């Protein structure tokens, strides 16, 4: 991943020797509580992302498409911002690493050809492949929307067979809050 100056400016890594930087506290005064307004940043660049966004909308969230995930850019977003989407292995490594002390992991998903593994830190997972209409990604979007609004704070993991994906490509999903 190359770092453009614009990306660095956006992610606050160009602050040099200014006063101690605390992403969390720097934005403490800007607690817009975006999640209460239903806004959620959506990342990814394929059909799965579009379908995920559809699912999020079906439960009342307002996804804002941001394109391919640049994890470094997330730290420049206001505290409380919700973010979801799909990325690759290196994106997940970078994302989870950058959230240490700076944000919350609400859920992570790994989606193989016909199975899904979901990890939630917002209570139990309702099987997202029990679909009457639509795709598994849209169903996942509805599940992520439900978890984003949930009040539970305990960890649950679930592995289950689901609707086969159209390709054998592994997809990784995430739901986080800054």
């Amino acid at each position, binding site marked *: 991943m190359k770092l453009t100056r614009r990306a660095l400016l956006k992610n606050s890594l160009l602050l*040099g*020797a200014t006063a101690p930087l605390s992403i969390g506290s720097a934005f*403490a005064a800007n607690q817009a509580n975006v999640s209460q307004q239903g806004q959620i940043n959506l990342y990814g660049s394929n059909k799965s992302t579009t379908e995920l966004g559809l699912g999020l909308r079906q439960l009342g969230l307002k996804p804002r498409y941001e394109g391919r995930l640049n994890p470094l850019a997330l730290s420049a977003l206001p505290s409380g911002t919700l973010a979801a989407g799909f990325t690759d292995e*290196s994106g997940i*490594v970078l994302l*989870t*690493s950058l959230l240490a002390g700076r944000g919350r992991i609400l859920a992570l998903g790994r989606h193989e050809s016909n199975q899904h593994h979901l990890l939630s830190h917002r209570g139990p997972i309702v099987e997202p492949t029990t679909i009457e209409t639509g795709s598994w990604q849209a169903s996942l979007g509805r599940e992520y929307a439900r978890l984003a609004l949930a009040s539970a704070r*305990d*960890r*649950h993991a679930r592995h289950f067979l689901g609707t086969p994906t159209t390709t054998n490509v592994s997809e990784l999903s995430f739901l986080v809050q800054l």
Partner: protein
Amino acid sequence: MSTTKRILPKGIAEADFDAALNQFRETIGSESVLTESEQLAPYTKIMMAGDASDYIPSAALLPNDAEQVQELVRICNEYKVPIWTISTGKNLGYGSAAPGETGQVILDLHRMNRILSVDPEVCTALIEPGVTYQQLYDYIQEKGYKLWLDPPAPSAIAGPVGNTLDRGVGYTPYGEHFMFQCGMEVVLANGEMIRTGMGGIENSSSWQVFKWGYGPYIDGLFTQSNYGVVTKMGLWLMPEPPAYRPFLIQYQDPEDIAEIVDVLRPLRISQIIPNAVVIVHTLWDAGTHVVRKHYYDGKESIPREAIERIKQDEGIGEWNVYAALYGTPEQIEVNWNIVEQAFGASGKAKIMYGDEAEQRGGGFEYRSALMKGDMNLQEFGLYNWRGGGGSMWFAPVSQAKGSETKDQTELAQKILGKYGFDYVAEYIVGWRDMHHVIDLLYNREDPEETQRAHDCFAELIDEFAKRGYGLYRTNTEFMEQVAGTFGEPLRNVHTALKNALDPNGILSPGKSGIRQ
């Protein structure tokens, strides 16, 4: 599966932990004491082949300055709460930001990120643990100083303090990071603060220029250890040279590695080539931007036939040497002639720089940036090679001799092959030593494969140790085993120091296999 049970530090009653948490909150504020599962989740993401349930923190503390660290340590001593210290928490593949064992409290220093001084005349810096390479780089650029950093490969988000304390390496002539460290401020387990080297002299101007101070030199005690919490560190910065020439040398035969190292050694020792030279195997060079299953989707090690196709398609050699020359243009021309003659003698090498090197496949562009201290995250691409999020660095040290390479390479390939993993490796040639760095990439989502990776790594440690090769660094899952390979007398000394400096054993228990 649900895990709602509260995680507590080992041997600490719930009431005592709650009392400690209350004091932590009074000291650094409630918002800086993290206890919720979703806040702690980022600290639990490990890449090594261990059980995730063994690496869950009970809390994380985020102090803003050294005085808060002192107070936190005093509270931990009172309640016997063990803490695991991280600086920026980017020790990926070596334990990441996770604690050494479940229940430990993370002491996360990333908010302590002040650049306290950069002196462009003596080329030094004094920084806190949360400063990232990118942050320091940008500061230097903003000031217009002609100074270079020496970042490791996944560099922008990591920091000089954490990397130096774990004795990491980079790719410029300042690549051996601990060699270029000068002066520390350390909070000891009893809460007292010391400054090493010349730092104990009030108003000293030499803290960042004279390493040794007076009496025993102790800075090394605070690297790869758990004897104190380093809250400031000095480091030397490389003056930007008038000219710089990165170059690439490709060899196509697996057995060429011995010749490469033997040609390279005298050039390194005499400083004709002054930087940490990397000799990258095909799969590493390709793995930063190619996905394995495009060439082979089997469970076993990638076969020779697929490696040859990658070499052909990607323009990559079996061994790809990345090095650079530094100095005036005249010095570089003189040294380039020496390099060309040395590597050209056998007729096996393809020697390139400039456009010719850039047009070859592999990592010339990002490695050229690294060898002049510029940031990039290209090596994160290795995590896409096999997929599944598993990565462990196996890095034995040897002499920089060709005779040391053949057995090592064959042994590594044999053991990796036995367990079905790929030889994704490089040799880093230092001044006289050589790190053989292997990224054991595996699918952590597959329990059977994870167990295989664990067994493979354990066997690599044992078999290399039998042949005299010890690791320079390892991940938290294998720290005990690696410490054992260095012998009990050394461990006894480490333990004696631990007992003397940290009698309650609260600082990073288990780090490098050191406990009370």
